[in-house]
């Protein structure tokens, strides 16, 4: 079974996010970029399935600028066998990403697609669900445990108030939550080998997808700076402030 795994290039989680002075977007010039942490968990899960003899090949797929090659290389250093880059400039909407994955999933006859549940930059949490709808295949989102058994996969999902385990017929789509696994560090010899692993470049046009824009980004603003607190004299005063000023009760 082949596994497709999604890899998105996003701002490194250690970097302090800055908004462009004209409020058009987050300022990404000269900032350190990295694999989206949820995607890293997806890569790890796919590699573990390969190590367990369940997967035969792990293919890392990214939709984004040519710079995303860096993240694909990282995925290959971690253990992905090859990579596919769907080259696209600017922000790519979730639906277009899902369409690209649907095409590649069919081309590669992948048995399982593992994606991060969301990316830490746009926080949409949509691609996995859209991909399931487009391909009419079952989905197991927010996975904290994944067990493949024959032609099905059991996915334990983190939901409000507990865990729900679903059994999906393969091919299926799984999106990862934080607690699914702890990604490994790449080994030095594997970083060097990753340079020689194959990477194919394609585009929306090559995949026969017409890119439609449904979303327009109006503006991006930094959150308002936190106001200093005050000491209240009594519980009554606190309740009154919560009612009249904070308007939360």
């Amino acid at each position, binding site marked *: 079974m082949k596994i497709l795994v999604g890899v998105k290039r996003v701002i490194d989680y*250690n970097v302090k996010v800055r908004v462009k002075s004209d409020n058009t977007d987050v300022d990404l*010039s*000269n900032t*350190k970029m*990295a694999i989206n942490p949820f995607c890293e968990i997806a890569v790890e899960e796919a590699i573990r399935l390969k190590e367990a003899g369940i997967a035969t090949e792990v293919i890392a797929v990214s939709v984004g600028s040519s710079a995303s090659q*860096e993240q694909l*290389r*990282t995925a290959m*250093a971690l253990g992905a066998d090859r990579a596919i880059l769907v080259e696209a400039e600017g922000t790519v909407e979730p639906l277009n990403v899902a369409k690209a994955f649907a095409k590649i999933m069919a081309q590669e006859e992948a048995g399982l697609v593992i994606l991060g549940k969301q990316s830490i930059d746009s926080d949409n949490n949509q691609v996995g669900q859209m991909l399931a709808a487009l391909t009419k295949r079952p989905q197991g989102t927010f996975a904290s445990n994944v067990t493949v058994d024959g032609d099905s996969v059991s996915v334990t999902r983190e939901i409000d108030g507990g865990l729900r385990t679903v059994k999906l017929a393969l091919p299926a789509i799984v999106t990862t939550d934080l607690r699914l696994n702890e990604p490994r*560090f*790449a*080994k*030095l*010899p*594997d*970083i*060097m080998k*990753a*340079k020689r692993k194959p990477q194919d470049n394609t585009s929306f046009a090559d995949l026969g997808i017409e890119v439609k824009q449904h979303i327009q980004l109006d503006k991006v603003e930094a959150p308002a700076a936190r106001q200093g607190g005050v000491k209240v004299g009594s519980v009554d005063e606190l309740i009154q402030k919560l009612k009249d000023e904070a308007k939360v009760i």
Partner: protein
Amino acid sequence: MSYQAPYKDMQWLVEQAYQSQHLAELNSLQDFDLDLANAIIDEANKFASNVLAPLNTVGDTQGCQFENGQVTTPNGWKEAYAQFRDSGWIGLALPEAFGGQGLPKYIAQPVNEMWLSSNLAFVMFAALAQGGSEILLKFASDDIKARYLTQIVTGEWTVAMSLTEPNAGSDLGALTTKAVPQADGTYQIKGQKIYITYGEHDMADNIVHLVLARTPDAPAGSRGISLFAVPKYRVNDEGVCGEFNDVHCTGIEHKTGLHGSPTCSISYGDNDACVGELIGELNQGLMAMFVLMNEARLSCGLQGVALGELAYQKALQYAQERVQGAGVGGKRVAIVEHPDVQRMLLNIRSETFGLRALGYQIAALLDVSELSQDSERVRMAESRIALLTPIFKGFATEQANVMAGTAIQIFGGMGFVEETGIAQVMRDARITTIYEGTTGVQAKDLVHRKIRMDQGVAISQLLTDMRDDICAASQSKPYQRLAVAVDQLADVVDRILLNPNADTAKLDAVSVPFLNAMGGICCAWQLARLEQQAHLNHAQDNDFFGNVIALADFYSVYQLPLAQAALTTVSQEQNGVGAYLF
């Protein structure tokens, strides 16, 4: 987060070193380009910041334990070592034929810097593996190479460097450990060594001690010293360890810093059953050990950079959080707003930046010296490395101590309190000016061997290069300031250091001030060069390159004059020391 690699600084300075030493022209580096360097820096940073850095405090507070000849490393050390080894980092810059990765030095340098910043006490074994392997590669017989090297390069075994004895420290000629030849060609080793880093520990299956000792009929002094491989467990013909080799740890030191690194006293051959194998020729041990020594000295210089970076990160974070005193307009501000705190932060930042640039240049020069086909380029690179090694070792480690002290000053009273962690940097830094040759030893090496015995060839070439750069950028303020210092330096070199009739005792007295002057001038030179590059690239990243320009300006105004003051001292070498009766 306790430490994050200064990713951007590293990336840019690696690129600068790569370009200025024309490494792209070296055929054997085709597969080792800047893209690979960046990918490796990125991955190494994850390991350094997530695995090694959190253990740094553990090592400091817990230290190593010694009981019944056994050394127990701090909690987490063993597991981290296994992870470090399995990730292939030990063989980073060692040959692929023995299980290494064969990376060039220019890529290994930033990676090593990260290890040293994140946990200096822990990674002491890495430089020992690197240096020890290089000795074996260069001097050992094929048989010894076959039986030892792969295990060392892959980290299955570690290396200890056994030089010092109670009466033989800087003066190794005085050592007395004996090596008695046996009928089978091996030697019986007997003697006591002290200050053996990782001489005993619980992280690997075997420890290969590289021991300096004397054969019975060896000449006295440093000409009668040979080098032996003395494993803790004997190594059979197939390279497998067997019986215990009568190598006993008799204790570990309670030290000012580096608590996580066991500093062992080792007794060889208590029961006359300690077998050593000769490495290289008889009585040529010191020469072989110098390969490791030079490696270790450059690694020490890098420790200075690494500790400066760590001190800066901690001090900057504190200065941005600590609100104290009023700024402009009377409002209470974080102390980073105060000009004097900015001065202190810039001291650390600019020194670290200049030293890092110098260290990365040296690494690139090492690649040229090892890989270039052009014999003239190789000769020039070797001569420059030989000159810069004592300067980098001596100056970077002296500055590490200054910088750690400055960082504590930024913390104020909290800096004197252990729980902030900044005091550890000062305590760990303290040994760096002492081990692998004290600053005094480096300074004598610089003045006598690298300048006087060299008849000023290497230093003249360095001065010429500096002056060429100064001429090419005559409008630059940092270069204009550097020009004055370089003239002063050239005068002192010609008039005093290269004076054939000089009183060597007088030169010894001013040798450390001279080394410090050279260090400051070399850093100012690096920063002035980087400033020019920053102007060219300014539009790409205003904040970063604007700061590089600011650092070059700061250094040339605040730090360079200290080098000039030291030159003033050197120029009065007849005075000051010698008259006082102790």
